[in-house]
């Protein structure tokens, strides 16, 4: 839809956010056991019960833990009886939030529960992610997620957009910022380490871990009732590029730029940006595509380099940006989520707090 077509669009806000501590393993918990505390947390923040929620939407992937239909088991943690209005995307929870946002726009619901979880510890996530690739020309070669990111990093270096010290600085800044984030998996100084796939070193890559997150959305006055300072979603959009890596210019992200434009990100300055850049080199691409200057606080949470529970890490960017608005630490923030290899698909949301 274009913004011209919706002059009387409902105002929708993130009113609560919670996340687990993200850790390398969570053997003692099934997925629902890991997820349930964050569901209870966001409901508790708003005083809502499951029965009060108009729409529930989740994002996850069965491939991560190798558990078929795990999203139906995860619903156990919601308490879906009497039957609830519910949906699921096999994507990062940021896209579940997008679906919930459209549901609220229609007026069918006033509140939505959005959650996402990822348990990467049971499998080998570098190999698991190869299964999302073109099954004819690419997946039979089993190019792992780090290898594909490394091809992008080398392209950036060849183009003069970055170099190894600059990438190390991104990694160090992220983990330093994460020391204030008790949920993060990597906090404080982390060695850059050896090459994992050259030119990317272990420090340029995200930690592998398990975690979950949830947010509550509410429309209009309902949002003001549930939250002292709602994080209003002023715009949200997502765009995708061709699946063929060799068709794309890996040093740029036209899909992120277009999503940002459609979300209204360029209509005014943002003070904060939470970028879903699992690899240090991807922050370089996104800063350029999203036109983020040095005056913008990028990933104060530490970002995906500090905690990257796959399928939840994008939703967490929206949640972290919203939480800063809730706390009065930001007035206008950009949140970004990505999916697919080398930033193939990108979602951008612009969040604002009421004037103080």
């Amino acid at each position, binding site marked *: 839809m274009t913004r011209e077509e919706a002059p009387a669009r409902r105002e929708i806000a993130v009113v609560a956010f919670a996340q687990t501590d993200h850790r390398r393993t969570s*053997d*003692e*918990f*099934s*997925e*629902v*056991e890991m997820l*349930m505390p964050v*569901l*209870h947390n966001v409901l508790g923040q708003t005083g809502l019960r*499951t029965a009060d929620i108009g729409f529930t939407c989740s994002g996850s992937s069965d491939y991560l*833990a*190798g*558990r078929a239909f795990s999203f139906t*088991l995860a*619903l*156990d*943690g*919601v*308490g*879906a*009886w009497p039957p609830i209005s519910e949906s699921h995307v096999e994507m990062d929870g940021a896209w579940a939030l997008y679906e919930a946002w459209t549901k609220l726009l229609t007026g069918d619901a006033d509140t939505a529960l959005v959650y996402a979880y990822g348990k990467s510890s*049971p*499998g*080998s996530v*570098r*190999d*698991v992610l*190869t299964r999302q690739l073109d*099954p*004819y*020309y*690419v*997946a*039979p*070669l*089993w*190019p*792992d997620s780090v*290898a*594909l990111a*490394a*091809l*992008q*990093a*080398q*392209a950036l270096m*060849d183009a003069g957009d970055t170099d190894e010290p600059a990438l190390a600085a991104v990694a160090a800044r992220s983990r330093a910022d994460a020391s204030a984030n008790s949920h993060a998996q990597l906090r404080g100084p982390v060695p850059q380490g050896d*090459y994992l*796939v*050259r*030119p*990317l070193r272990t420090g340029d890559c995200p930690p592998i871990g398990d975690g979950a997150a949830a947010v509550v959305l509410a429309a209009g006055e309902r949002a003001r009732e549930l939250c002292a300072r709602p994080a209003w979603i002023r715009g949200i959009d997502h765009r995708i590029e*061709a*699946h*063929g*890596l*060799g*068709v794309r*210019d890996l040093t740029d992200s036209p899909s992120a730029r277009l999503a940002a434009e459609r979300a209204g990100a360029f209509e005014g300055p943002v003070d904060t940006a939470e970028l879903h850049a699992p690899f240090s080199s991807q922050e370089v691409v996104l800063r350029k595509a999203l036109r983020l200057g040095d005056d913008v606080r990028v990933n104060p949470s530490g970002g995906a380099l500090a905690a990257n529970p796959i399928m939840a890490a994008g939703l967490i960017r929206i949640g972290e940006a919203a939480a800063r608005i809730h706390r009065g630490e930001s007035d206008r923030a950009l949140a970004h989520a990505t999916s697919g290899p080398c930033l193939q698909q990108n979602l951008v949301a612009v969040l604002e707090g009421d004037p103080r």
Partner: protein
Amino acid sequence: MPEVLKAPLVVEFPFTRSVGPVQSAFLTGLRERVVLGVRTRDGRTLVPPVEYDPVTAEELRDLVEVAPTGTVTTWAWNHEPRRGQPLTSPFAWVLVRFDGADTALLHALDAPGPEAVRTGMRVRVRWAEERAGAITDIACFEPYEGEGAGEDARVGRGEHAGGAAAGARHSGEFEDAISGIVAPARLDYTYSPGRAQTAYINALSGRRTVGERCPSCRKVYVPPRGACPTCGLATAEQVEVGPRGTVTTFCIVNIKAKNLDIEVPYVYAHIALDGAGLALHGRIGGIPYDQVRMGLRVEPVWTDGARYPDHYRPCGEPDADYETYKELL
């Protein structure tokens, strides 16, 4: 809390996929050591070729042949090859723009070390000895010192590398063209069932069935999954149920399952163990199949070394009254 259980889990399956006409021509071409691209209306040549224009979504069918040589547009050194990857010794991942093409193909480059690889270097296809019509018919790329070597080709977009003319048209027709591929997939996991199911399985090893009670609605879940799906609350209070139970409903199985050594017909039933808030599944034995009925009282039959009851059999009690199990159907 006792140690949670873990077990290896291998998920392995062959995907059988049909191909479109462009994919069929390209993959069959590789079998015949021919590299095909596809032309777009605006004159670009896409290698690997696709069925639809990635920009305009227009259907593409105009095939051209390109040289089996090309230029590296980016690379990454992989010092620890993983299972399934093209080479078992260290190699470079590369995007290669074939001479005559405008886009690049992902594959492996066999090179002695990262010092020997650079963006812009010239490479050529090393064909697999046995080819079947798959992307792996290209074994890998290798450095190429022939025509165009000596001076790196330029890598800028839209500039054709090497000297090959933009490709000659190709019909895409081959004898015995492939119509599909079989792509094996295998993922290895270490499965952990979590706290609640670990407790359930550990109890079973002592031939006891232990469920968990919801703190709100008081229902006892067997097997427990850690949460009450009605209330959305964690279950923690462990409750031993059974061993006897009641058949709440059943079906008669007349089709012999592969790899299952059970004579048909047999009865598969929902059994509400005494004290459980819902029924579990089990086979009924020790009674002719046509005498099994709702309300039949049963008990588990264990075999030596088994980790769960082999089946349930009548225990001799009078049938349960319908009122006692109607909520458990």
